[in-house]
């Protein structure tokens, strides 16, 4: 699966990086999140799903490998 952070929605709550620190990176300057690699390693999928569910701004989207939004 793939994951994306919408930079217009992210407000820097940082919960995603608490849940899945290997996937989400926080800007050193304002703490807003991004993903270095959209492709989520299989062993990180649970953490990424939890990050999606934890985002107060609903700024994180899972994109299935087929490209459809789930």
């Amino acid at each position: 699966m793939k994951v994306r952070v919408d930079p217009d929605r992210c407000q820097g709550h940082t919960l995603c990086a608490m849940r899945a620190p290997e996937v989400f990176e926080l800007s050193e300057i304002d703490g807003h999140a991004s993903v270095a690699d959209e492709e989520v390693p299989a062993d990180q999928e649970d953490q990424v799903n939890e990050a999606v569910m934890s985002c107060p701004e609903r700024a994180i989207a899972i994109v299935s490998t087929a490209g459809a939004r789930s």
Partner: protein
Amino acid sequence: MSGDGAMSGDDRKRAPIRFDRHTPEYREQFEAVTQELQGKCPIAWSETYDGHWVASGHHEVFEIARSADVLSNDHDVKGERRGYEGISIPAPPRAKSSRGGFLEMDPPEQRYYRQTLNPYLSPAAVNRWIPLVDEVVRASIDERIEEGRIDFVDDLANIVPAVLTMAMMGIQLKKWTVYNEPAHASVYTPPNSPDQARITEMQRAMGRDLYTSIVEIRANPRPGLVDALVRADINGSTPPDDELLGVLALLIGGGFDTTTALTAHALEWLSENPRQRERLSRERGALLDSATEEFLRYFAPAPGDGRTFSADCEIVGTRFKEGERLWLSWAMANRDPSVFPEPNTVDLERKGNRHSSFGLGIHRCIGSNVARMVFKRMVTQVLDRMADFVCDPEGAEHYETIGVIQGMRHLPATFTPGPRLGAGLDETLDALQKVCDEQRLAEPVTVRRAVAKIDH
């Protein structure tokens, strides 16, 4: 209240609710009031304080808070714009009012201020302070450890956020006492209290010290938030002194009482739930993050914010008119069972905890990373050094009302005494002042990335 199509404000106003969050009853009946509002009317009209909307459902709070294009935080104290009254409902009396920093501004002005301060408050910036915070916590606990008795508010949770805020601002650490009492007392002292005159005088002293710092640092730069602000580029000019004072007062008001409130409530809960406390201590590596978010959700130190609609609009099925006031209840949204199963239970490993205790949207608490870090460092040392603490319910004093902050004035506790580990607070602060000055710890993360180094 969900019907076909959008409900106009006029329809909704025909059935106003009785809602006054400044009464002690709201605190005492918080769960019942929240359940009733969310069940019947997640956006309701209350006639109190010249009339305002109350958003209590999570979906409603979320959708409205993020509609920055039709929502204003502006506090137009000089009557230069549309006369909006900022984030407090009711607004403070005209004579006493000043703009509450960038929390009472709209973009783009608000954004300039946040961009100025972000490099001091990001997670990377905040983590540099951990060794200093640990020392302040250590010294605060050392002052009480041999007695086996502490007031978690007065002797710990008031001190640490205040000292760190001083350090980050670039003000002398030992001046935390000038700022501490007025920062808390101005929140919990009712306007008609006989103590009000004394509080007002302390607030003046704090204002004088802030102004002196502004003048000093403008003339002789030294790193910190004050320096950042006096030199800030706000759309091509530096901020005037009254705006600087408003922003600095916001950082103090936002940083002191809230972190104290979170810490005190969490420690009180841990005292009442000793098994959970043992588990948190034992599994802290896995649990401390989620437990912190759960305490934030459940105790929501800043229970909400006011807004003004800046245009006629329709959101989540309700029509609003320009100029109408709105209360966004972060605290009630946090108890919405459609998002948080068993919302009135503390679950230290809660999943999907998308709480709104730091607000939602563009005004997300800029100090959220500071609050979390300071909270975790205090709780960790308490668990390590006072593992069997028991809070005294007779001495625990909650704020009488939770209209502004859900805080605590006192939280005495007893525990098995232990040995001191180092110097007392005053001596420690003197030593840490040298560290701050020599290592220029208060620089933004863009200038200084290294973590504070403290010799023991």
